[in-house]
């Protein structure tokens, strides 16, 4: 599978380095290595969800308990989580660190991903959620730490869009 193992490792190591102790996730192709890394890490609480919005509640519970968390989801999962983000995380000032695979953007071959790809950034902007991109493995660690720092300083969700550039290695023809 051409999902980048090395860059998934860089993301996972960055999450560990900034003290993330719980990860909620719903599998999607680009996230498979990350989820496996969480599963194989005895120090990580991995919560596999039925729907991404549950992750807002799980992360809020972890936050109240003093455990830093990250949410792994596809952008369609982010779109499915909007009410929880608004009427829990934003209403109650809960920091969330959302790592969102940015499907349906340039280079996408799956037609079914394309509409969500077009909606992702406009929805993030309309919710006032600060977001950035993970596109360069050299900057992954710093950017994840910065997104987490802002989330906790502002008591608000922040998002990092996991790009094709970082996550997908086109197989050689």
């Amino acid at each position, binding site marked *: 599978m051409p999902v980048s193992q090395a860059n998934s490792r860089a993301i996972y190591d960055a999450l560990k380095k900034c003290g993330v*102790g*719980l990860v909620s996730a719903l599998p999607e192709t680009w996230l498979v290595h990350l989820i496996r890394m969480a599963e194989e890490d005895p120090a990580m*609480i991995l*919560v*596999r*969800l*039925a*729907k991404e*919005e*549950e*992750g*807002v*509640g*799980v*992360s*809020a*519970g*972890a*936050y*109240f*308990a*003093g*455990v830093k*968390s990250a949410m792994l989801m596809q952008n369609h999962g982010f779109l499915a989580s909007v*009410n*929880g983000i608004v*009427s*829990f995380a934003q*209403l*109650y*000032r*809960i920091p969330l660190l959302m790592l969102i695979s940015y499907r349906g953007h340039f280079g996408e071959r799956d037609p079914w991903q394309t509409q969500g790809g077009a909606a992702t950034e406009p929805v993030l902007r309309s919710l006032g959620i600060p977001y950035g991109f993970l596109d360069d493995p050299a900057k992954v660690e710093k950017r994840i730490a910065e997104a987490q720092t802002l989330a906790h300083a502002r008591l608000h969700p922040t998002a990092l869009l996991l790009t094709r550039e970082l996550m997908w290695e086109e197989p050689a023809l």
Partner: protein
Amino acid sequence: MMQRVDCLRAIYPQLQDCVVVTIMGAVAAELQSLGHRPNFFYLQHAMGLASSTGLGLALCLPKRKVVVFDGDGSVLMNLGGLSTMGRYRPDNLVHVVFDNESLLSVGGFPTATATGTDLEGVARAAGVPRTCTVRTLEEFAAAFLDALAGNQLTSIVAKVEAVGPKAYVTGLALLENRFQFQRYIEGLK
């Protein structure tokens, strides 16, 4: 038929040392009417996520008893959450569903439990190891004490009358409740 506020009153003393999460509306207002405590968090929106919040708390605070007061309308909005609870089944989580078969605060429209959906059956089939349905105050109090004393994830579906308090807005600001609750948990360590 029993009333939710009487159920809450019957077990109120046992909530002293629990980490408690409630849904919005009548449950939150009635628990507050009995006396707010810093270990009570009222999720005044985000219907369906009280159980997910309880799951996150229970997984991260394994030495604490976590109690969620849920409702039929909220559970029906997050049936998948029951499967996530059933998957991880934390031993320290007690999940109470007050089932009045209606969306009371918006005018009492019947939910699907009024037409046959059995939430205890759903919870059991989702993998919650201990489940029961109770209809009297005595049954409720006994089931709750059993669940609290036992070390197994339990869902208690309590069939209650569709009556609630006169008002839903209380004097406790949402953020005041949120910060107080967080400080309470910090103080446990």
